[in-house]
């Protein structure tokens, strides 16, 4: 009963979560081959974190800048969002951040999954 076990060697090669390495663009695109589609496109919604990781790479490819630079310049700077950041907390976080008890992932960066 329950879900079948995932066979060895078929899982993701990276994630950025504790004990795993960060995914870069190459890792992410390579791992896409291991993952069959759940549905055909435009048929059924599936909340997809990997889809958004790809959008982050599209931002970089379309602008020839890093995702972080684009968001900083075109959104955070324009709107005066001085307390917002990607790739880890902003400087003022030590004073103004909220972290619940037993939360160990708050200062991780997630590589290609930052977006």
């Amino acid at each position: 009963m329950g879900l079948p076990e995932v066979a060895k060697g078929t899982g993701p090669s990276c994630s950025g979560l504790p004990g795993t390495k960060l995914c870069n663009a190459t890792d992410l695109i390579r791992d896409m081959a291991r993952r069959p589609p759940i549905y055909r496109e435009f048929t059924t919604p599936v909340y997809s974190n990997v889809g958004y990781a790809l959008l982050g790479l599209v931002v970089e490819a379309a602008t020839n800048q890093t995702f972080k630079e684009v968001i900083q310049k075109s959104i955070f700077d324009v709107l005066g969002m001085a307390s917002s950041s990607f790739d880890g907390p902003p400087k003022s976080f030590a004073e103004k951040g909220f972290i619940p008890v037993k939360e160990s992932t708050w200062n991780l960066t997630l590589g290609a999954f930052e977006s």
Partner: protein
Amino acid sequence: MPMPFTFVVTAAAAVLALPLASANVCPPLGPVLLAPRSPGQNPIVKAAIGSLKATFDGQMKAQMKASAVSVAVKSIHEDGLLFNYHFTPPTQSGLGTTNVDEDTIYRVGSVSKLMPVLALLQDSKVSIEDPVTKYLPALRNAKGSSEVLSVEWDDITIGALMSHLSGLSTDSKSPPNPYSLLKLLK
């Protein structure tokens, strides 16, 4: 194959045509009913805000032992906030703030998904109808062992990724191949 977008436009046109065709219909919201310009002065809104605060006070105290909560509501027509509520839980980690307020920085998680969408919508060179392979051609090589197990990357648009309609899985974890489990495909 960005059919849904075309469909939405057609449906909107059909809805707009309705009031012309039949009498005694409710007027559409917006152009006819003026937007409330000063909701903060409205006694009904004020009373609702008061009772919302009382409900929150009771619920937070009873249920939130270690989670902080911040809620704000703002009208685009007023400078101030209509509702501004912050809750500091009794149990804290010892890291960061001890007083949650409107300057508290949260870990926003998937709310950050707004950012790549906003950035791409602002970029006039990018269309949401572009296939993802226009920007990431290497995806064409990301194929499974058969057609059934492969994503049709050229048919997945930027808009499909934005609206969670790409058919891609949720996370990187590869589900066991259902066809292999049934011994139908390798």
